[in-house]
């Protein structure tokens, strides 16, 4: 059996008094498309920065395809491509130069140019290859950042919020490209706030909250475990009876979303509203999605947090 792409064992991280990571254990197999979800401050980026060698853990260890990221960092980093969250660039060079430099740091020479051209084409950067980084638009800079992480053809690719602030068209294009990488054998690990994308793309999901993994399973299993219905009622500005208030998952502009375990609860909610003399202006019934799972595990327990995007 092949080595896991990433093995995280007992990782703790303290920043002064803050216990940012509280014993993370996680194994990601080669070829997986894995999502790391969690609200801001859950510890996702800290975990990724430890994996990338930018932060040292207070305890525990992480290995990339069997190589420890601290004691065998040279081998581990050869196998890893990390797309940072911040839109950073070097203003002195053009896109192709940056990709050649990045590949060169990993010991790759001109023989790597074919792969660089492939990345440029896949990310729609071919006609910008000789453009200085500072002259690129925000979306183009984001693509160049992804290209840089891939320049040395790493088998394990980590994308930290790669589509933050990216328009819908570019997001779709990036996902198609990353899906293609995954089909070609790259292990993909991503953190994202776009839960529908994690649901559509990833085979497995870990959800983090306050420095801990609170759920770890295949996307399908998580959805099954938390299967249920969502009843969306347009009620306007009302005071709900206390008997149904606990079922409310989300409120926005007078639209109340109730999380129901079974169909029988629909009648219970409607009856309670009738008794309270609240008029239903519109009604919708939906299946639960990954956002509901996320809110059940993370949102509800976080004083008042009910929405993530």
């Amino acid at each position: 059996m092949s080595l896991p792409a990433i093995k995280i064992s007992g990782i703790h991280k303290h920043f002064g008094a803050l216990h940012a990571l509280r014993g993370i254990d996680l194994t990601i197999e080669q070829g997986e498309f894995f999502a790391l979800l969690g609200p801001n401050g859950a510890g996702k980026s800290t975990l990724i920065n430890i994996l990338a060698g930018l932060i040292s853990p207070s305890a525990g260890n992480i290995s990339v395809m069997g190589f420890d990221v601290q004691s065998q960092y040279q081998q581990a980093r050869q196998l890893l491509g990390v797309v940072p969250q911040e839109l950073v660039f070097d203003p002195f060079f053009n896109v192709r130069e940056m990709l050649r430099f990045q590949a060169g740091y990993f010991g790759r020479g001109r023989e790597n140019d074919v792969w660089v051209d492939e990345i440029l084409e896949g990310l729609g950067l071919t006609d910008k290859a000789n453009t200085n980084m500072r002259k690129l638009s925000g979306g183009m800079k984001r693509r160049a950042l992804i290209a840089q992480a891939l320049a040395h053809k790493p088998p394990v690719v980590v994308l930290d919020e790669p589509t933050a602030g990216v328009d819908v068209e570019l997001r779709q294009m990036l996902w198609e490209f990353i899906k293609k990488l995954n089909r070609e054998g790259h292990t993909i690990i991503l953190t994202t706030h776009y839960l529908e994308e994690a649901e559509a793309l990833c085979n497995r999901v870990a959800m983090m909250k306050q420095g801990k993994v609170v759920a770890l399973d295949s996307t399908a299993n998580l959805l099954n475990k938390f299967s249920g219905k969502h009843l969306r009622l347009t009620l306007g500005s009302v005071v709900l009876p206390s008997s149904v208030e606990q079922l409310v998952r989300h409120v926005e502009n007078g639209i109340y979303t109730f999380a129901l375990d079974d169909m029988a609860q629909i009648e219970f909610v409607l009856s309670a509203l009738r008794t309270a003399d609240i008029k239903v202006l519109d009604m919708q019934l939906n299946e639960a999605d990954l956002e509901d799972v996320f809110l059940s595990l993370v949102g509800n327990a976080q004083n008042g947090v009910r929405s993530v995007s």
Partner: protein
Amino acid sequence: MINPVNPNSTSMLPAGLRGPWTLLKKELLRFWRVAFQTVAAPVITALLYLLIFSHVLESHVQVYDGVPYTAFLIPGLIMMSVLQNAFANSSSSLIQSKVMGNIVFILLTPLTHVQFFLAFLIASIIRGLVVGFCIYLVAMWFVDLSVANFWWIAAFALLGSALLGTFGIIAGIWADRFDQMAAFQNFIIMPLTFLSGVFYSIHSLPPFWQKVSLLNPFFYMIDGFRYGFFGKGDVSPMFSLIVVGGAFLVLALITLKMLKSGYKLRS
């Protein structure tokens, strides 16, 4: 399975050297792309010093017997520019990379702390020497400068630029903002350079200030470098070489320790 490491390379360099060589190449290109600012500007500044000071003092001051003041001044100006530019190269590159965040592109690579150090160090030395050589070429129009011992010149130029390049790495790692770097430059580098005997011999100073000058490591770099041109100096060139070499070794060890621990670069 994707082959992660070392495909059939066409590079002439051994695999272990390609990473640091790439970083060195990037650092050299970085200053060469803005050569007007990084090479031409310091040459012009040094020439202005030369024109003004030689015009004012040429007929009034003779530091060494038989050596005109303009000739005395040129090696000091060359060395001053070598030192300042070696410092500026590593310090400005690091502070810019840190402030802009693109230092992460280097931190994510398998480069070791020694390779990181050597790439920044050699780039600084090269910029210092390029600026110094350009000033030398231009200064030749003004005065016929003899060379008493080329090897002293080479040794002090190399060690001096290495010392200041290393100091620049320390400053670049330590500073978090551009104003902190400016303070480093204005309150440490500039006073030490100007008070190092570029424009005068320390024998012309009162005894107290002579002793103070001997505590300034920049004095030994300037004096030793000048010895290579005239065969004369305020102190023995060998003693100067030991001081400068010792200072470089101490700073290099501090820098390597900072880089290995990830001080202000990795948390």
